[in-house]
């Protein structure tokens, strides 16, 4: 209900919304929770396990009960806390975990069966038969218990992630945080002030108290306004700092547009990574409950929340109010409710010596609340007196305060454990738990407003000073300085279920049972009972549960300790953390300069690492990729083909010692290479396995260009950086990746030179450009590089131009090729051409093969050291019975080989112990009219000509193959040298 004359919502601005399809009205400034309360909706959700009716418990992000799904369709956002969700026009919310309706929930019968569902019930009951767990029990339990569900549809909503940097990060916008930010900012520090709330003031927004003579909320708003005008301050409302990480890094979730009917271009949420040189934690405190029978009835709330709803939003869950507490702060709730004209029927304080600070209300010192009545809404409360006297009072609202816990979570994210403080009967942060972070205000157990203001200012000054800024403490405003006394009370003894963790339905009895079953460690108790494991992480139940465990195990609270607080402090949607990483945003896309032309010719593009390369170039009438591939292979073998090879890594190396450096990273010798020549090289890892291969050209005396495979370009660059910086510091060598600076095309086939000579300003011949020659050429005056190298095994060249000319050169090359009966070829043809020639790719040098395995043992020079040489020679690396590279072809022409199939002796059973090797690459060779394969076969080089059995267990294919030399086509390389 709305309480006249109370609250700071704008009653001139009504806002319409729906809950479970029913229309309601609230006001600008409402949260969904306050609007529902104002509309007399008490039942807002069903509990996780027992489907108990539940109402709003808190007024903040710690809310365990009031979880709803906001918005609908693909944009549905489940498990939104109604206490945090600001109201906007047209907001749609639906309740969760109930069927068919919130009011009548069939699975409410779970509650009747509760005696069977205690701690460990699932573990004990669904043990047998084992196979039932996955198929029956777990799906059944998951359906019965649960929170809201995602829509399962792709969500087009925008989310964002971003970095921010500051000198001082102030976490929390309450009195301490505001003063910390003000002080640090005035000293000159760059300040970020993050407030979880939509506004600043923290608890001042919820209280009826003055600061410097103004209402606290007014003072806070004015100060935030002043901060907003300072250039070195960035205010971040609606931003929850979710985690503290090493090196002054913090995670934070900003609800950018969760409060807007139409986000426009704004993201729904933004996940921030904030790098702060210093931080001041002013995260405040969270109130805790007291366990008593049926303390979860809708209408039973935290006393501080009850007060917040009254003072900030002008609403209350009922007119007849009971307040129950063990501390002074509870009295404020009774006082404010009474002054607002509500009927406070009892102020119950468990401390027998407590004094009434609430004014003219019925006061019960030394009494406790023993039970709440009313299923879907509170109706009455049983009080129990010091001598066991019983009294029942009619009430529809009950505010409970078991004391306040400093919000210490962030101080524990780097392994710090909080310390027990008897003064406030709660855990306070350990000093220096997070390097560079100080704690001020209620977060360290200082509850009076005046003291919070002072501590905040001091912490702000200290943070600024630590960074070399100097500034004065501002004048501390005049504010309340009330003492706070609390006496431990965790649970009221008695029969029935007394609830601790509302979100996971854990009772006092469950914790005691865990202790009886010897789950004495807090971490074990937590996992056995699931206390504190829900999305609220037990913010309103942890300390009570620990206390009850301590009591049940005969230990003290500090000795029992706490469970581990881990990030995030509040739930963070994966959409925010992974913002941008959907669909094509998941990985960068790299396009060659010929990309558009290839796509225009209908080439299907395939991913090669981050690159996209044409698979084949279909011609009219071709029905399958094989037809296109076969044609392209023949085209290269008979006339000329063009292929973009720009994706290969290109590294420009310069310096007097490049030759010596290459001698060290390649197994073979490069220092003897003459300018204008190219050499094939093999690189090992230090463990002796092949890392990569490629050609390196010596352009001039001191400039070289290395090519790597497309797949390993990054890895090789990293490796070269390592080798040079770690081992070759004295060498005169520098290098840089130029992969994207040069577009490079293979021109392959018997007519390749004819094509080039029609293009080059100065024609070439075998004398000027023999195999493995390189040199500068010019095309219409444009300086280019020409390399006579061949992956296809044909008379071939690669021509490189600065990338900006790539697209036009590709068109020119294709035009000329087509007049010669050639054209473009794609990855499929490239693969067949190289398989015919027995050339390796990373299918063969997959990380477990050595130079010996691929038949290149002689490429490891005996005359020099190189990376990987020592360990390539260790026992086991060069034995004959290793799996060696071989060629394979089916005995029956026309039969297919499959990559991934394993090799067995004929007659041997196709099982692991008889495994002799495997096939790495296959393709149909139109040149030879048969399938060809490359693979590794134990002692394979000695078995050329023998028959071997191929078994593909996955596809169910068997074939008899002949073992051959890996080179199947033009064995003497005559075509290459042309």
């Amino acid at each position: 209900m709305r309480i006249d004359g109370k609250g700071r919502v704008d009653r001139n601005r009504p806002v319409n919304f729906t809950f479970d399809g029913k229309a309601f009205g609230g006001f600008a400034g409402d949260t969904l929770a306050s609007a529902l309360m104002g509309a007399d909706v008490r039942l807002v959700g069903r509990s996780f396990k027992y489907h108990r009716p539940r109402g709003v418990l808190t007024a903040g992000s710690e809310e365990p009960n009031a979880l709803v799904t906001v918005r609908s369709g693909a944009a549905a956002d489940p498990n939104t806390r109604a206490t945090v969700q600001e109201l906007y026009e047209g907001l749609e919310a639906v309740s969760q975990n109930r069927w068919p309706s919130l009011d009548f929930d069939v699975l409410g019968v779970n509650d009747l069966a509760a005696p069977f569902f205690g701690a460990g019930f699932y573990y004990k009951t669904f043990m047998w038969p084992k196979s039932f767990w996955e198929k029956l029990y777990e799906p059944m339990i998951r359906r019965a218990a649960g929170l809201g569900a995602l829509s399962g549809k792709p969500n087009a909503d925008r989310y964002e992630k971003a970095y921010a940097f500051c000198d001082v990060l102030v976490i929390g916008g309450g009195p301490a945080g505001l003063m910390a930010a003000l002080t640090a900012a005035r000293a000159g520090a760059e300040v970020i002030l993050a407030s979880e709330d939509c506004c600043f003031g923290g608890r001042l927004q919820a209280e009826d108290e003055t600061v410097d003579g103004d209402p606290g909320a007014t003072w806070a708003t004015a100060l935030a306004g002043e901060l907003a005008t300072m250039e070195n301050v960035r205010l971040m409302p609606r931003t929850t700092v979710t985690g503290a990480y090493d090196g002054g890094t913090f995670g934070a979730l900003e609800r950018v547009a969760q409060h807007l009917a139409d986000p426009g271009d704004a993201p729904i949420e933004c996940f921030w990574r904030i790098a702060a040189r210093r931080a001041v934690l002013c995260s405040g405190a969270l109130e805790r409950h007291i366990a008593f029978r049926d303390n979860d009835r809708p209408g039973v709330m935290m006393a501080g929340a009850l007060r917040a709803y009254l003072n900030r939003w002008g609403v209350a869950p009922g007119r007849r109010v009971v307040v129950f507490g063990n501390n002074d702060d509870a009295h404020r709730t009774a006082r404010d409710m009474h002054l607002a004209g509500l009927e406070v029927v009892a102020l119950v304080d468990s401390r027998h010596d407590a004094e009434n600070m609430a004014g003219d209300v019925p006061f019960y010192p030394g009494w406790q609340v023993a039970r709440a009545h009313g299923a879907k809404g509170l109706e009455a409360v049983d009080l129990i007196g010091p001598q066991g006297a019983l009294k029942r009072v009619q009430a529809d609202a009950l505010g409970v305060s078991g004391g306040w816990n400093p919000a210490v979570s962030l101080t524990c994210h780097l392994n710090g454990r909080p310390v027990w403080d008897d003064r406030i009967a709660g855990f306070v942060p350990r000093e220096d738990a997070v390097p560079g972070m100080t704690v001020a205000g209620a977060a360290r157990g200082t509850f009076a407003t005046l003291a919070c203001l002072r501590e905040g200012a001091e912490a702000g000054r200290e943070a600024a000073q630590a960074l070399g800024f100097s500034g004065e403490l501002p004048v501390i405003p005049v504010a309340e300085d009330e003492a706070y006394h609390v006496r431990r009370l965790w649970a009221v003894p008695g029969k029935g279920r007394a609830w601790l963790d509302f979100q996971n339905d854990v009772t006092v009895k469950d914790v005691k049972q865990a202790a009886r079953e010897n789950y004495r460690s807090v971490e074990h108790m937590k996992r056995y009972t699931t206390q504190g494991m829900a999305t609220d992480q037990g913010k309103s139940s942890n300390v009570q549960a620990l206390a009850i465990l301590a009591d049940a195990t005969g230990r003290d609270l500090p000795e029992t300790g706490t469970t581990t607080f881990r990030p995030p402090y509040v739930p963070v949607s994966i959409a925010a953390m992974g913002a941008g990483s959907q669909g094509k945003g998941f990985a960068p896309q790299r396009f060659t300069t010929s990309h558009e032309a290839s796509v225009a010719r209908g080439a299907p593009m395939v991913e090669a690492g981050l690159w996209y390369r044409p698979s084949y170039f279909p011609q009219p009438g071709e029905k399958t990729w094989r037809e296109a591939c076969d044609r392209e292979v023949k085209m290269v073998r008979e006339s000329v083909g063009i292929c973009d090879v720009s994706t290969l890594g290109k590294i420009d190396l310069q310096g007097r010692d490049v030759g010596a450096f290459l001698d060290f990273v390649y197994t073979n010798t490069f220092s003897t290479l003459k300018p204008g020549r190219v050499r094939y090289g093999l690189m090992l890892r230090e463990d002796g396995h092949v890392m990569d291969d490629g050609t390196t050209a010596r352009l001039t005396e001191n400039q070289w260009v290395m090519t790597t495979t497309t797949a390993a370009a990054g890895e090789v660059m990293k490796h070269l950086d390592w080798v040079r910086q770690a081992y070759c510091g004295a060498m005169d060598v520098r290098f840089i990746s130029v992969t994207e600076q040069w577009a490079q095309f293979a021109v392959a086939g018997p007519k390749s030179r004819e094509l080039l000579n029609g293009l080059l300003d100065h024609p070439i011949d075998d004398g000027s450009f023999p195999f493995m020659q390189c040199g500068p050429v010019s095309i219409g005056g444009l300086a280019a590089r020409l390399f006579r190298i061949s992956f296809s095994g044909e008379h071939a060249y690669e021509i490189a131009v600065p990338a900006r000319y790539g697209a036009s050169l590709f068109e020119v090359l294709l035009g000329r090729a087509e007049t010669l009966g050639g054209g473009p070829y794609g990855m499929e043809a490239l693969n067949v051409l190289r398989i015919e020639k027995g050339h390796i790719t990373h299918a063969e040098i997959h990380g477990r093969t050595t130079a010996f395995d691929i038949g290149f043992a002689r490429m490891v020079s005996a005359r020099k050291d190189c990376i990987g040489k020592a360990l390539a020679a260790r026992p086991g690396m060069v034995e004959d019975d290793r799996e060696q590279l071989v060629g394979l072809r089916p005995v029956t022409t026309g039969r297919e080989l499959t990559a991934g199939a394993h090799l067995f002796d004929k007659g041997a059973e196709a099982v692991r112990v008889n495994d002799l090797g495997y096939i790495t690459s296959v393709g149909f060779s139109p040149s030879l009219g048969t399938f060809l394969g490359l693979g590794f076969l134990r002692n394979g080089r000695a078995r050329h000509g023998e028959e071997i059995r191929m078994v593909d267990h996955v596809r169910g294919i068997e074939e008899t193959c002949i073992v051959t030399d890996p080179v199947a086509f033009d064995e003497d390389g005559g075509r290459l040298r042309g």
Partner: protein
Amino acid sequence: MRLTCPICGDRDRREFYYQGDAAMLARPDPAAPVQDWADWLHLRDNPAGRTRELWYHEAGCTSWLMVERDTVTHEVFSVDLVERVDAD
């Protein structure tokens, strides 16, 4: 976590690639017994406390760095260029 690259300054750890123990810097003599090589390549201490590690500023200046760090507190004591360490 953040590292202060001697060339680029204070940067987020996502810019860096972690390699492992700085023992890799002490490459054995080519003539050393194979066992020494295998030990150098494969055996690592796993200290709780101060360690020297190799990081690569992959998304920055491509420097290899030697980071002195505490594996318990995660405190970073120093970040040096491997090139400079090697030259010493």
